């Protein structure tokens, strides 16, 4: 019987398999950032262990970094974390793209951008949105700090083999519906716990038609549906994106790599543990109304009546009444950024909505590019001018208001249309209220001053 792509990559990376024990898997690429690594490095030091493969480890600063005013704007404890990362990388010989580096950025934006993220790799990072890298046909897991320590010391991960779920999305995306809406639509369908214990393989014509940026957005949100990894078969779109990038193979090695990558996709006769089908024609631009990413409705509809206690709590936190038209909900802040939606395609489409308009006087809006490189590219295309002239703040790269570890946070009660991935209570700032939307929907909300259907907006 044939094998799934997940099974092929898994089996390619088994270092040791013992009866009754989880498999020991080799990690091709370990991405490190300042927030989930200091305790791991400290443990290594205390037990006199070394970093086994600093050459397969790449570090950046993203979670804490201020997005204006440079490093001097960081608070004392953020600075302590950044200095710790510098010191840890220096001692171990790990390449670090720190603040001020031309390659700095959100860890899940720079991996692909530098060509480090490649098909068939097993990738690990101490961040749940590591699932993003699966867009290239890699198996990419978010891990905790103990596992970060384990990978640093052994270059291996010890894991039980997950089940594999196929999510088939077929058909042409309707106008105004983006990869973000595909992700929100899938999570709304399977639920926030639907993917638990699984790796998700996204398949079907809709997925194949997505750009690499769109595929990354879909895979990024996999964890919000409860699955630890999401993946998409590599194809010409993948190869075209990768070819010529800094760390991509070249010449004869490129040819060899391509021939290996061609063998990765799931075999026609492979069996999935579970299959889900989504009709793209039925997807709409979604808005979350609650406090988890599964609580979403089409922008044209109304705040639903609560069905569970969780729903009731969410409505209270969000200060929303059932039956309220989504488009009547006023917005105080707009955030365009995060590892979900801060790549060139996201900024281009948001700018196309913004061009010639002005941010509503009651709204404070900001754009935070996903990396220093995205920022430079956007500026070379004049997108920064489009945003600034409309009244958006144009910031430096980082995670920023997606999780609010730096000074970019919502105030209590502030309501934000956000292109990020989590609308948890307090996620973007204590008491802040988050509505997850796509980049064009966020841009339109900034101008209208309330949530609005981007398809009706000009």
């Amino acid at each position, binding site marked *: 019987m044939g094998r799934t792509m997940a099974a092929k990559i898994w089996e390619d990376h088994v*270092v*040791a398999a013992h009866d*009754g*024990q989880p498999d*020991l898997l*080799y990690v*091709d*690429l370990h991405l490190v950032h300042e*927030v*989930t690594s*200091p*305790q791991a490095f*400290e443990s290594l030091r205390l*037990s006199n262990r070394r970093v*086994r493969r600093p*050459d*397969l*480890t790449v570090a950046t600063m993203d*979670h*804490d970094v201020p997005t204006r005013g440079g490093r001097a704007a960081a608070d004392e*404890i953020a600075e*302590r*974390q950044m200095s710790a990362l510098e010191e840890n990388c220096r001692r171990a010989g790990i*390449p670090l793209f720190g603040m001020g580096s031309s390659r700095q950025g959100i860890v899940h934006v720079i991996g692909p951008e530098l*060509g480090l993220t*490649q098909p068939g790799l097993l990738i690990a990072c*101490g*961040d*749940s949105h590591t699932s993003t890298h699966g867009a290239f046909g890699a198996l990419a897991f*978010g*891990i*905790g*700090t*103990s*596992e970060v320590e384990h990978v640093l*010391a*052994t270059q*291996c991960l*010890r894991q039980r083999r*997950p089940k594999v779920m196929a999510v088939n999305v077929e058909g042409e995306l309707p106008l105004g519906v983006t990869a973000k809406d595909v992700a929100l639509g899938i999570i709304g369908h399977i639920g*926030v*716990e639907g993917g*638990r*214990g699984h790796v998700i393989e996204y398949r079907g014509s809709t997925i194949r038609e997505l750009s690499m940026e769109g595929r990354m957005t879909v895979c990024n949100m996999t964890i919000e549906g*409860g*699955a*630890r990894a999401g993946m998409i078969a590599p194809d010409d779109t993948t190869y075209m994106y990768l070819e010529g990038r800094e*760390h991509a*193979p070249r010449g004869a*090695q490129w040819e*060899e*790599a391509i021939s290996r990558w061609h063998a990765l996709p799931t075999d026609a006769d492979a069996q999935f543990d579970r299959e889900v089908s989504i009709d793209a024609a039925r997807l709409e631009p979604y808005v979350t109304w609650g406090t*988890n990413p599964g609580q979403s409705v089409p922008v044209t509809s109304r705040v639903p009546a609560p069905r569970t*206690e969780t729903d009731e709590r969410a409505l209270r936190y969000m200060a929303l009444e059932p039956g309220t038209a989504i488009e009547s909900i006023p917005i105080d802040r707009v955030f365009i950024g995060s590892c979900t939606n801060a790549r060139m395609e996201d900024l281009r489409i948001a700018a196309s909505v913004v061009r010639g308009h002005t941010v509503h006087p009651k709204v404070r809006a900001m754009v935070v590019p996903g990396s220093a490189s995205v920022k430079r590219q956007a500026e070379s295309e004049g997108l920064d001018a489009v945003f600034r002239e409309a009244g958006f703040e144009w910031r430096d790269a980082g995670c920023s208001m997606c999780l*609010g*570890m730096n000074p970019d946070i919502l105030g209590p009660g502030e309501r934000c249309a956000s292109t990020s991935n*989590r609308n*948890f*209570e307090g996620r973007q700032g204590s*008491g802040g209220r988050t509505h997850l939307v796509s980049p064009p929907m966020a841009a339109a909300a900034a101008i209208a001053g309330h949530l609005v259907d981007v398809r009706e907006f000009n």
Partner: protein
Amino acid sequence: MEPFTRVIGVLAPLDRADVDTDQIIPKQFLKRIERSGYGPFLFYDWRRQGDFILDRAEYRGAKVLVTGANFGCGSSREHAPWSLLDAGFRAVIAPSFADIFKSNSFRCGLLPVELPDPAVRQLIEFALQNPGIEITVDLERQRVAAGGFEAAFALDPFFRECLLNGWDEVALTLRQDAAITRYEATRPGWLPVGR
């Protein structure tokens, strides 16, 4: 890691589903570079709103938490199980746990106990109606018992062994050094390196 064999302690109920790691330990407390000291910030925002159930005198010093499905969803921050441990909890009972939270918990010595929905519901009611009641969580026998309630639970046998013995997983893997080196020799030369 401290070995885990059996815990007897107060059972505290948190009757909510989908409790995410941002609620367990909000991001402003992730800036420490130590593994300890997170206990005071456990469920920080909920505690600040007042009358939070875990702050009631009867549940002070609780060692076991019983809660709703999909506990620990969201971010991979191991600070979530660290903060529960630091606040005195040794085990959490729920119908299900988010994958990364469960994996992190095993690795830092917090025992995630999965019981069927009705059993969890029964325990939550039991803890609400008998505040301060003690529960026994026995990892060796894989059973929980409180008052007349008793249930068996399943657990990954590998992580059970690790917890019972307080094993250091890195040390276990380093014994496989030869296998790792053999695997490394088979990796194609064109795979990416960071420098």
